[in-house]
C-alpha cells in the first residue's frame, strides 16, 4: 500500500504523489512515516524533509508547519517548501547575511515584531543551506 503525500503551502500545492515513505523534521525530532502509520498530528520544525519513492530520494527544505498522518495519507502544511534542486545557495547565503546584519541593528531598538520576522528568515535560510550542503557531501 503506497502512502499518498501532499505538501501544501498557502501559495501553492508543492507536492502531491504516492510515495514509499517520508522522513520529516518534527518538533520532537526526526520522524519517519511509512504507509499504515497510526493517525497522528504534530508540528514541524524548519529543516530537511526526505521523500523516498521507488529507491529514489527527493530532498526538500521546509519551514514551520503542521503534519497530519492517517493510514493512507500524509498531509504537510507549511509556510515554505523548496526543492533542493531549486535552492540558490548564493542567494540564500546573502539573505542569511543580510538577516543577521539587520538583527544586530534591530537589537538596540527592541522591535519585537521585526526581530521575530528576521529570526524566522534566519531559521529558514539556515535550513535551506543545511539541506543543500548535506546533499553535496553525500
Amino acid at each position, binding site marked *: 500500500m503506497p502512502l499518498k503525500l501532499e505538501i*501544501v503551502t498557502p501559495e501553492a500545492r508543492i507536492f502531491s504523489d504516492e510515495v514509499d515513505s517520508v522522513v520529516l523534521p518534527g518538533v520532537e525530532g526526526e520522524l519517519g512515516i511509512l504507509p499504515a502509520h497510526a493517525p497522528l498530528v504534530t508540528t514541524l520544525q524548519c529543516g530537511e524533509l526526505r521523500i523516498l519513492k521507488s529507491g529514489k530520494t527527493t530532498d526538500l527544505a521546509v519551514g514551520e508547519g503542521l503534519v497530519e498522518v492517517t493510514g493512507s495519507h500524509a498531509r504537510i502544511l507549511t509556510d515554505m517548501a523548496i526543492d533542493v534542486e531549486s535552492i540558490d545557495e548564493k542567494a540564500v547565503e546573502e539573505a542569511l547575511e543580510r538577516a543577521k546584519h539587520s538583527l544586530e541593528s534591530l537589537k538596540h531598538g527592541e522591535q519585537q*515584531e521585526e526581530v521575530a520576522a528576521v529570526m524566522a528568515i534566519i531559521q529558514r535560510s539556515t535550513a535551506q543551506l543545511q539541506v543543500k550542503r548535506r546533499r553535496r557531501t553525500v
Partner: protein
Amino acid sequence: MPSTRDIRRRIKSVKNTAQITKAMQLVAAAKMKKAQDQAANGRHYAEMMNKILVALKESAEEGIHPHFTEGKGNKTLVLVIATDKGLCGALNTNLLKKLINTKIDGEVEYVTIGRKASQGLARLRKTLIADFPIKDPAKFSEIRSVGRFLQDKFLTGEYKTVLVAFNNFINTVTQVPSIEQILPVNPVTLGGKRGFDEQSKEIDASELPQYTFEPGAAVVFETVLPQYVNGTLYQMLLEARASEHSSRMVAMKNATDNAKQLLKDLTLEYNKVRQAAITNELLEITTAKMALE
C-alpha cells in the same frame, strides 16, 4: 448644432480613452487569471487546516487557548482589505457601505490593507490604528506581520472581537463584500463552510480518525492557531485580490464597450452634419445661379 470640427475632436478623444481602457482591460485580465489561480491554490491549504483544527477541537477541552475566548474589553478591531488602486467598479464603495451598515456595538477601531481602505475610512472620520501596504501579487510572508499585529492586539484583552471586511470572490462577475470574525476563533464557523469555495462541504468530526497529538493537543494548538489565523487572513487577502482584478477587468470592459458605442453615435452625427453642410452649400450655389439667370 456642433460643427464638424468639434465632433471630430470629440471622436479623437473618445478613441484615445477607448484605447486606454482596452489596454487596462487586457492587463487586468492577465492579472485576474493569476489572482484567481492563486486564490484557488490557497483553498487547499485553508481546507486542510480546517480539517485538522476540527479534529483538534474534538480532542481538546474548551477554553484551552486564549484564541477561543472573547476579550474583556468593549472595543472591536476591524481589518479592512481593499484595493490600492481605483478604477475597479464599485468594489471599494460597496465594501465601505457594507461596513457602515453593519452595526457593531461599542467602540470600533480599524486596521487597513490597501490605500483605498485607509482613504475611505479617513474620510468617514474613523479611528485608524494601522495600515499595512501589501504588494501585488501578495506573498505569505507579508501577511504574517498583519497576523501578528492583530493577534497581539487581541491578546491584550482590550478588544472583544477582531473582524475582517473583504470582498469575497465568487466568480468573475460576482464579488460579495463580507465581514467575518477571525478572533476569537469561532468554533462554529471553524472547520465549517468558510464560504471561500462554493463546493466546500461541512466537515463532520465523527468521520475523522482519532489522532494522536505529539507532543500534546495543547502544544499543537499553541502553534496551529496562529498559523490558522495567518492562513485564513492570507486566503482572505487572495480572495480580495482576485475580486479586485476581476472587478477591474469587468469595469474596463464596460468602459471600452461604452466608448465604442459612443464612437458609433458620434460618427453617425458627424456624417449627418457633414452631409447637411454639403447640401447647404449646394443649395447656396443653385440659389445663386438661379438668381443670376
